[in-house]
């Protein structure tokens, strides 16, 4: 009995080869909204000009979690898609299972090693093998602000935590919402990323959120982080819980709220609403984190497909790495190209700053994976953090309890 079950289970995890037809790619992704979908359509058209048919497999919901469930079923049934949009540690998990393709030949021909920053390659490569094509680099330590509102209240761009809190107080006194926020675990964790970077700096961030060192997790520094989260909690409105992030962004766009702490995908919302950087809205680094870029990167992971489907798959990977696509796509998406060899001209002010920051951080070694976006630790640990951060933000724990819970939750999830 045991051996039968065992054999079945091993079978589940085995490399499965899909009978995909040649000159066609099936892409599983969750970009179904206007701007992103339109950007992906550019990719589709590029491929179709090369005679490759794009078979679209969108599954939205939960920031990709729904799509990951579908992926499990697809791989288990021996019918994996050609390529799957994926984030961070998920990529590594699938690579460990041996379910992904080898792009080394293509990568070498096109010198991907030279143009993609090492921190991003951590995820695009597995044990020295290229397995994914990164489409962009997002960064989460940004603040988005309504410029007319700040001008009206006489608030400049805050450079330090103290200035930022003073600015929030000013907005509150004027009767507007200081901080637009949506009460979903990942959004709270997004703020947490920046607060950890501000409070402890890059080294502490690495020790606590990536290496998960117990000493760092229960340090006085971590307590200070939670205390600052509590401070920020005072500036959100009463209806924050459960709100989607883009509705929070809409509050800033409409001038109901002054600031939002959010990754640079928020820029797409401003642009969609016809707003212009430095005129209608401001983008600036979270105070005290100006030298670091806390990143996440959307990558297209290539799965094991039948031999005759490999050429089309490589064409897809090549098309994603194409500079023209990276420019077109990232202009819409709010992120910056994953390639470092793309000129900043042609991007708006926020995009240009993002590209310069990325290049700087890549050189300085301060380009660090975002925990909240799955680039700090595997899913189980990430969610253990979510649990504690959210419970603390909602007043279930005080800061001491939060540290205690964090320690045990992370240990249990490791």
């Amino acid at each position, binding site marked *: 009995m045991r051996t039968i079950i065992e054999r*079945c289970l091993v*079978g*589940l995890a085995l490399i*499965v080869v899909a009978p995909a037809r040649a000159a066609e790619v*099936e892409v599983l*992704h*969750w*970009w*179904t*909204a*206007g*701007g*992103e*979908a*339109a950007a*992906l*359509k550019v990719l*589709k058209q590029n491929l179709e000009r090369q005679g490759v048919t*794009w*078979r*679209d*497999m*969108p*599954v*939205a*919901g*939960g*920031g990709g979690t*729904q799509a990951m*469930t*579908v992926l*499990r*079923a*697809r791989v*288990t*049934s*021996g*019918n994996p898609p050609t390529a799957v949009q994926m984030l961070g540690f998920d990529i590594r998990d699938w690579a460990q299972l041996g379910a992904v393709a080898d792009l080394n030949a293509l990568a070498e021909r096109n010198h991907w090693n030279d143009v993609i920053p090492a921190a991003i390659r951590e995820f695009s490569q597995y044990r020295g093998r290229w397995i994914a094509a990164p489409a962009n680099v997002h960064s989460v330590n940004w603040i988005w602000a309504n410029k007319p509102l700040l001008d009206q209240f006489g608030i400049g761009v805050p450079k330090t935590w103290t200035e930022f809190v003073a600015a929030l107080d000013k907005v509150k006194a004027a009767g507007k919402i200081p901080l637009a926020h949506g009460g979903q675990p990942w959004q709270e964790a997004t703020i947490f990323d920046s607060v950890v970077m501000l409070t402890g700096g890059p080294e502490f961030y690495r020790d606590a959120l990536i290496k998960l060192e117990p000493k760092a997790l229960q340090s006085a520094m971590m307590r200070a982080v939670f205390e600052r989260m509590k401070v920020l909690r005072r500036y959100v409105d009463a209806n924050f819980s459960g709100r*989607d*992030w*883009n*509705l929070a962004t*809409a509050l800033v766009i409409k001038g109901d709220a002054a600031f939002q702490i959010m990754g640079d*995908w928020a820029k*797409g*919302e401003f642009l*969609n*609403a016809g707003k212009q950087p430095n005129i209608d809205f401001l983008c600036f680094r979270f105070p005290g984190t100006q030298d670091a870029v806390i990143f996440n990167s959307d990558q297209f992971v290539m799965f094991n497909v039948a031999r005759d489907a490999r050429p089309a798959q490589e064409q897809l990977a090549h098309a994603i790495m194409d500079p023209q696509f990276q420019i077109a796509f990232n202009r819409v998406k709010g992120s910056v190209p994953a390639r470092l060899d793309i000129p900043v001209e042609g991007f708006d002010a926020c995009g240009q700053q993002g590209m310069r920051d990325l290049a700087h951080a890549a050189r300085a070694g301060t380009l660090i994976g975002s925990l909240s976006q799955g680039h700090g630790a595997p899913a189980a640990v990430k969610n253990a953090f979510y649990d504690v951060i959210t419970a603390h933000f909602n007043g279930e724990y005080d800061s001491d309890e939060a540290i205690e819970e964090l320690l045990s939750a992370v240990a249990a999830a490791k």
Partner: protein
Amino acid sequence: MHAALLLAAAWYLLPLIVLLLNSLKPLDEIQAGSVLALPREWTLAAWRAAWSSAQIGVEPTGLSPYFVNSLAMTLPAVAFSTALGAVNGYVLSHWRFRGDGIVFALILFSCFIPFQIVLIPAARVLGLLGLAGTMAGLVLVHVVYGIGFTTLFFRNYYVTFPRELIHAARIDGAGFGTILTRILLPNSLPIIAVSVIWQFTNVWNDFLFGASFSDVDSQPMTVALNNLVNSSTGAKEYNVHFAGAILAGLPTLIVYVLAGRHFVRGLLAGAVKG
């Protein structure tokens, strides 16, 4: 008494009416006004968008291409599971054998299995059968998890059928098949209605299997609706979402309204008696 009934009716209707009213408004009117207000400007634009031009994936196709997929999945699944239920119910009520009670209980217990836990093993089995990502695989899964319900319906219905009639037929030489097709089935309309309504609703509304076991060419409408309303960026086009929601629910609503009369009658005859 009448007031209470009408109040209840209003409560049940509220979501549908609010969805309907707001799907007929332009977006800015929804954002600025009240949920409960009538549209100041009536427009079908949101309905047209939801049906044929809303962004579902890379292409702005609207929900229409998925409607056919849903039909192609639902109709065979309903037909097969109902047929199996009728035959099983017939055997379990009129062809006794040792252990038939346990067999019935085992079939029935399958109604209570949460779908999330069968997802991965089912994917594996479909893969082994060569049905991964096919419409046939999707139909098979829906049939399997519908058998419990349909067998329950038919078995309880046929149990109440006069024994004497069947006994007499047997003496006249009617065999297994003849009794089913000549005597039972012609009298089964109410319970067929129950089975069809139940299965149609469950299969049509399913999302988890539809998303996991489908292919590019077989994604059902619920998956498309999910892609429409759950996309994470861009201004939420509530009016389009609402129109899409009603469109996705329309076939089941029609089935309920058309067959609803038989539903209560069938429940009376079957499901409750057990």
